[in-house]
């Protein structure tokens, strides 16, 4: 059942504008999970060691599963998760540009997982406090799997950051390249003010970003890493549909079989 059809929804959400705002937020979140899950799945079979390969594959499956759950919630009448995932052009996607970048090397991959999954934790913590009961329950469900993602990312980041100059240098370079796009995970979805005003959301994206930064910066510094200058200026646009060429290339590949016959069942 869609969240806005839940029994407590009218009391919390009220009108159509707020329901649209909720749908937009869920769609953006679903897009984040789909695109990142797709990027993680590209490591299947070629990660640095066999055990990490298996672990990252599970994380990929989790993110794809989260995307499906969130698309189910965001879907309008007659839309299915598959149609949302496979049937839209790049400019209709609302993921943060952080997740659409190509994988790069293992340092880049670990840093992205680390930044994103800690951001996701900040987002989930706020949503788990929503007075909209079904929304809060969804956030708590997703949060349980995300805990493992952070464990994996924390373990790898620590070891790479502290294993010597070469690996720390690569981690630092990845951090320099990705920090500002990570900040843009917290670009608000359109209509967020309405959700805040309705009390459906207890803290907005800006507040979530502050909580995220205050959690991650000390941890990075404790590992001997430097947060880049201009640390407060996000580089993004994803939430408004402005994407890099990487997303178009990704979607072109991702939809190549489904597009070969959109009416076929697979």
């Amino acid at each position, binding site marked *: 059942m869609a969240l806005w059809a839940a029994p407590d929804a009218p009391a919390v959400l009220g009108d159509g504008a707020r329901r649209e705002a909720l749908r937009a937020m869920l769609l953006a979140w679903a897009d984040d999970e789909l695109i990142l899950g797709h990027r993680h799945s590209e490591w299947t079979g070629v990660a640095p*060691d066999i*055990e990490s390969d*298996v*672990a990252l594959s*599970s994380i990929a499956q989790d993110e794809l599963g989260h995307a499906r759950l969130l698309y189910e919630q965001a879907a309008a009448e007659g839309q299915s998760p598959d149609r949302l995932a496979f049937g839209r052009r790049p400019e209709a996607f609302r993921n943060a540009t952080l997740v659409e970048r190509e994988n790069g090397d293992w340092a880049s991959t670990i840093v992205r997982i680390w930044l994103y999954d800690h951001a996701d934790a900040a987002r989930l913590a706020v949503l788990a406090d929503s007075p909209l009961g079904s929304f809060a329950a969804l956030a708590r469900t997703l949060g349980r799997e995300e805990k493992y993602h952070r464990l*994996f990312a924390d*373990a790898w980041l620590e*070891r790479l950051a502290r294993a010597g100059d070469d690996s720390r240098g690569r981690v630092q370079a990845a951090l320099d390249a990705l920090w500002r796009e990570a900040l843009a995970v917290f670009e608000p979805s359109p209509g967020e003010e309405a959700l805040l005003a309705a009390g459906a959301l207890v803290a907005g994206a800006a507040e979530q970003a502050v909580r995220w930064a205050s959690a991650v910066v000390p941890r990075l510094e404790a590992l001997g890493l430097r947060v880049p200058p201009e640390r407060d200026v996000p580089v993004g646009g994803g939430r408004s549909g402005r994407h890099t060429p990487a997303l178009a290339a990704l979607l072109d590949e991702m939809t190549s079989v489904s597009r070969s016959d959109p009416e076929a069942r697979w």
Partner: protein
Amino acid sequence: MNLAEITPGADHVFAVFRQETKADTHVHVGDVHAPDAEMALVLAKEQFARRDPCVNLWVVRYADIAATPYGDADMLEPSTDKSYRFGGSYREQQRVYRRR
């Protein structure tokens, strides 16, 4: 003997023990290669508990595992009558319980 005598690089091979529910003991389900115990736990979860129920995991470095040699299997099996350890060789209980 020590299992490091069999397993190359036993310092970074970890035996994984999975506890399915709190009614169960931890059971050896396989091993992972890992740089240290903390990472071994993280990696063990997906290699050995992604399909099976699990409430707890242990990991133990192979270099720390002492084992009996298989050549001693004959010693591990009793060769003289030990029926005195088994209830079935005492018949009084059957007789008395039948009386009730």
